[in-house]
């Protein structure tokens, strides 16, 4: 499967990829995006099976990216991996069609819990 990891921090993209592996999902093709705009373009070009996106990014935020994807009729599974996990953010994410919101700092167990139903354990 193809997974887009969108985060403006290279450090956090590395950590997300590492945590995917630790959660038992290391065999997938990972495509990295530095912001929501790049993520939006990559979803169109590469048709991934899942998007894991930060929320707060320059150029285009994660939630703006998700809204743009849904507005153009793209139903790619989309989850947030973000430093903000307030009830308001979770509600906003769900309203836009996100499947989950993983708050930083996270663990491999949190990733497995969110991803196993989508990618298989």
């Amino acid at each position, binding site marked *: 499967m193809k997974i887009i990891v969108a985060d*403006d*921090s*290279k*450090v*956090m993209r*590395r*950590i997300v990829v*590492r945590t995917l592996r630790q959660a038992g999902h290391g065999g997938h093709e990972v495509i990295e995006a530095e912001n929501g705009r790049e993520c939006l373009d990559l979803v169109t070009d590469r048709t991934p099976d899942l998007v894991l996106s930060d929320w*707060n*990014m*320059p150029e285009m935020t994660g939630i703006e990216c998700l809204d743009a994807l849904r507005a153009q009729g793209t139903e790619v599974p989309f989850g947030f991996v*973000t*430093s*903000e*996990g*307030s009830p*308001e953010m979770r509600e906003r994410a769900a309203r836009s069609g996100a499947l989950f919101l993983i*708050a*930083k*700092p*996270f*663990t491999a167990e949190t990733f497995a819990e969110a991803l196993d139903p989508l990618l298989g354990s």
Partner: protein
Amino acid sequence: MSIHPAPLDPGVDPTVAASAPTSADLEALLVETWESYLSDGGPAIPWPTAPVDDETVGWSASVCFDGTWRCLVALEMQGTTAEAATRELLALDGDEEITDEDISDAVGELVNILGGAVKSIVAATSSLSLPVVAAGRVALPRHSTRLCDVAVRWHGRPVRVHLHAVGSTADTGEHTGHTGLTGEVP
């Protein structure tokens, strides 16, 4: 970089200070963040008596909250500490090259995580800025008030986090966010 004092601002809403995280909250968030991503370098141990030496702040970063809760979270560490943290976050070997851009990214992401965690325990509506990183100590906005200051020992050296209330735009006549800060690394 020069040190900017944090003068008390009579315009700061006293409820801001009342609703802010405590030092214990801040310390727990700092320890949790280090445990999550930097445990290979040993535990981060609370260090209430950590020395404060302005000359040894090699890298720092901050994020701002704007809204009904207007605050700034700043993270400071020595240069060798920032380099060690970056190496661990990027899983680099000791002989692999590390750039200032890597360190800036790592320190900025750490303060971003801390800022998000701080926001999660505050019952107020505020937006979180993107992090600003400085080689040296980040300057504070004028009219800010220090609310908390905690430190942990990691690799034998202090890692310090400050929380500041920031006066409103109406009070200060200036923007919040990071427009009052200097020393940004692109």
